[in-house]
């Protein structure tokens, strides 16, 4: 029975709009594509984490590139500052920027008479960055204000350079320096995070990772292997809802522990995992699509003498997952495309060159590729055609995809264009896994019939190789009720 929107009976514009929304998000959809995505994403996730094995201690260990102490300081203490609730006066320089403003001629503090500046600087002498006790004693012993002020003023600016805040901030309301312990905490935090911690509205980052806590090398290997095993189980579709959540928790553990070793691939992997978890949270009767769960459910049903659905039941969560992936992809393209418009190279048509000739990414170690680029460079018109073409293609896909993909007439053009874009990036920039993830995003726009044909083709291939078994062909079932 088709899912009937309770709003579709409303015969007005609002009713139609709400009915559209309801159908867009909650109409049950064939979960076959979801299953296919799960397998593809799962394989890439497993590969990504197997590769981590070579760098397990270097990236996630206690004394790795980003050592655990520094990471813990950042996640517990990183301050954040909210902007003021009112508009700041336009004729005043922001307090935090004042120390950086150059006071001409006499190197006084900003807009302050010399004697007042000297008085204030003398209060913070103990915290200024002296090269040696002798230097401090020498400056303190100066009797002439004209000699003393420039020295103190310079040290003031050196403090600002190192600690990113005005040292007078270490004075209490009576003009006395804070206790040393408190001063050290403030200075250390300001040096690390660039903000006086007392000006912060809060601190800390809500992230988690098993690698914040498991630091023994042997246990790290054990946990790492266990996570990979769980990811394999998810790929195969064993206890899919549970292994899905565990896979995501595991993948994000690596991400949160080594934020400096990440790039776009990890972002896309995380997004897809989130939506796959949502889509597989409540699989239909018989288990998730293309999963071992489904095989087990079929075996059980046979054993108990029960009927088992020959084909997958559409589910609401599968549709919701597809829509989430689609909308998110559109946002990614939109932000990527519009941010490029700020750059000059994307306007003058040279941006693609700076990616194709990037030595660390492009396959410039291959002579054939180098020869190709050299050939282009020796033929300017051809070079401009290729680079401008790549430029326009990139911007066309990123700026137009979010709008044109929803129209049936233009959908296939956009899908092909996006596929070419990602294939090109994979070929010329070496970001292969990243681009495969992007292509998996695009699968949600393909009709499920294509997935069925693909799976039938794979199945037929296996049937030709393996002993024949009686299987029904994989056709979509009538729409049924879902959650």
């Amino acid at each position, binding site marked *: 029975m088709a899912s009937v929107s309770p709003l579709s009976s409303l015969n007005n514009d609002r009713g139609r709009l709400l009915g559209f929304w*309801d159908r867009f998000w909650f109409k049950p959809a064939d979960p076959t594509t979801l299953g296919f995505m799960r397998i593809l994403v799962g394989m890439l996730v497993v590969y990504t984490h197997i590769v981590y094995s070579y760098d397990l201690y270097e990236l996630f260990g206690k004394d790795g590139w*980003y050592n655990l102490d520094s990471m813990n300081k950042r996640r517990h203490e990183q301050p954040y500052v909210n902007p003021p609730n009112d508009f700041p006066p336009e004729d005043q320089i922001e307090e935090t920027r004042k120390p950086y403003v150059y006071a001409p001629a006499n190197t006084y503090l900003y807009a302050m008479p010399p004697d007042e500046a000297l008085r204030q600087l003398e209060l913070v002498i103990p915290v200024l960055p002296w090269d040696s006790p002798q230097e401090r004693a020498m400056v303190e012993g100066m009797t002439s204000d004209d000699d003393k002020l420039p020295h103190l003023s310079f040290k003031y600016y050196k403090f600002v350079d190192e600690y990113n805040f005005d040292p007078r901030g270490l004075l209490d309301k009576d003009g006395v320096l804070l206790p040393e312990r408190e001063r050290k905490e403030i200075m250390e935090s300001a040096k690390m995070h660039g903000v006086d911690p007392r000006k912060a509205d809060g601190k800390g980052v809500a992230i*988690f990772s098993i690698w914040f806590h498991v630091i023994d090398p042997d246990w790290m290997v054990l946990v790492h292997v266990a996570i990979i095993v769980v990811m394999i189980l998810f790929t195969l579709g064993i206890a899919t809802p549970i292994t899905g959540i565990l896979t995501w928790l595991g993948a994000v553990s690596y991400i949160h522990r080594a934020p400096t070793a990440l790039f*776009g691939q990890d972002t896309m992997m995380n997004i897809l995992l989130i939506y796959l978890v949502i889509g597989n949270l409540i699989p239909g009767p018989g288990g998730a699509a293309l999963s071992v769960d489904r095989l087990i459910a079929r075996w059980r049903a046979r054993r108990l003498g*029960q009927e088992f659905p020959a084909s997958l039941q559409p589910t609401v969560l599968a549709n919701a997952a597809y829509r989430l992936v689609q909308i*998110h992809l559109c946002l990614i393209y939109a932000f990527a495309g519009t941010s490029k418009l700020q750059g000059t190279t994307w306007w003058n048509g040279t941006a693609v060159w700076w990616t194709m000739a990037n*030595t660390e990414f492009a396959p410039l170690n291959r002579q054939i590729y180098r020869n190709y680029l050299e050939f282009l*460079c020796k033929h300017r018109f051809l070079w401009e055609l290729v680079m401008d073409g790549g430029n326009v293609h990139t911007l066309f896909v990123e700026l137009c995809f979010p709008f044109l993909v929803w129209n049936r007439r233009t959908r296939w053009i956009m899908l092909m264009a996006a596929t070419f874009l990602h294939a090109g990036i994979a070929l010329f920039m*070496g970001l292969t896994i990243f681009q495969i993830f992007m292509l998996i995003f695009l699968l949600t726009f393909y009709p499920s019939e294509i997935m069925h044909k693909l799976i039938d083709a794979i199945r037929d291939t296996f049937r030709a190789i393996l002993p024949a078994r009686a299987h029904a062909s994989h056709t979509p079932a009538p729409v049924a009720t879902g959650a």
Partner: protein
Amino acid sequence: MNDLSVTHAEPTPNDWFAKCERYVLDPWVALLAGYALMLLAIACSLSAAPALSIARQALAFIGAIIGGWAVWMRLRRPWQGQESNTPYLWAFLIPLALMAFVAVETVFGKSYEEVRSPLTILALIQVSACVAVGIVMRLMQIGSGNATTSAAAVLYVAAGVPLLGLFTQNQEWDSGILVFRVLTSLCLIGGLLAALPRLVRRVLVSAFFVYHFVGISMAATTLAIRGEQPGWLNIQLSQHIYKDYLNFMYLTNAYHYYSPDPGPPQLFYFCIEYPPTPGHPTGQHQWVSVPKREDFRTRLEYQRRLGVTESTNDVTGITPLPVQSFLVNYRKNQCNDPAVPGKRALDVENTEEALKLGISAATMIRKPSAYSQAMLRAYARYAANHYPLLDDNGDPVPGGKATSVKVYRVTHLILSPYRFAKGIDPLDKEQYLAVFQGEYDTEGNLLPNDGFVYTPLPNKWITENERDRYGVAKDWKLQPDEMKDVEDENGHVTHYILVNRMRMHADYFRRRPGP
């Protein structure tokens, strides 16, 4: 129509498997097991013995898995029945009150620590109430007519499992605490959604979708653009509403790929200094470059190392002008050291070379942001502690622990089409623009500035005749790859030498130990 529901078949007389299966697939049995394991884990947490500490974590983990299994076992059965308006719905309004409490506390700015205890107690009370309701329903064998309420009951009872899990974690395992809190909240919210009428449920889920995508948009629109602050509203939303959600889910990416313009990659060159040894009374040093493609088995590993180096490429730090002026003069004095004439080669200010590279007095000091500086300290510490001195056979030298490390962030410049057409090698050393990031001790502390910290040290091929012009000392020892012969169209060969300022700087400014 086929009955698609999985029902409990009556076991055949000798079918022990079906009997076991009934219990395994029963969500209430699983919940009982989950609770039991969590209570056992809490018991283990009372002791500090290492073995019990490991057992505690293992039991908590397995308990949570079994709780999840219970939820799955219930939700995978058809759970949509007639819409429930039974009195049980009132019990499920309790979590609404709880969530409202949390929202009010958050809005009024209470710190998380202050609300933690009352929140936990409230959650405990609420879950206990729902557990009681759920158990009563189970005992009363609620039929399929109220299937949604039954599913909700399982979820509410399941919320107690991660809630108990909170008490198995000590303060150090804050990740476990965070995850258990989130799981508890998800179970409570899931239970509420399950109990509500479908229309209301869909409205709430739709609201979440909107919340989710607005949050993603906030992540993408709260970047500073060309030094200008992002929108006020965006920052307020990000800080007050989305910060924790986006950070927890790792949805903080702005998707600004290759924008505003594609840039060149960054590499690290570490010059690691070692103490004197009998054979080397003035100490030794070793150069390590990161990353090198040939060091990695897979491309992915190599790309991750490029991410590490890229994290120090945020040069938005500000140096106060008086300090800049001082450093300009200090650097000039350093370069005009009569005892070491070769230092003159390091002075690139106001030269044609600097002009071509876009180096001016204003851009001479490329100070990293506080974040990048913190990364540099961490990486310097790593380099100082992970690259022992090796002998010619590749074996570690005894006593070869580093004393300090100089860090150079090297931009691998991309060849212009003009230079590419001329056949210049993309790996040519002139394409490597080094910026000195400072010298650090083995704990990652920055040592005093020698005048060159955060300043560029470009390479340049020159002819022998130009040595004086570029200040290259006659006794400067060139390495084999710092010399080349170039034949022009007429067959005339010119000998070039490389002004490798990075290596010069490392050598001329070596902090040599005393005798």
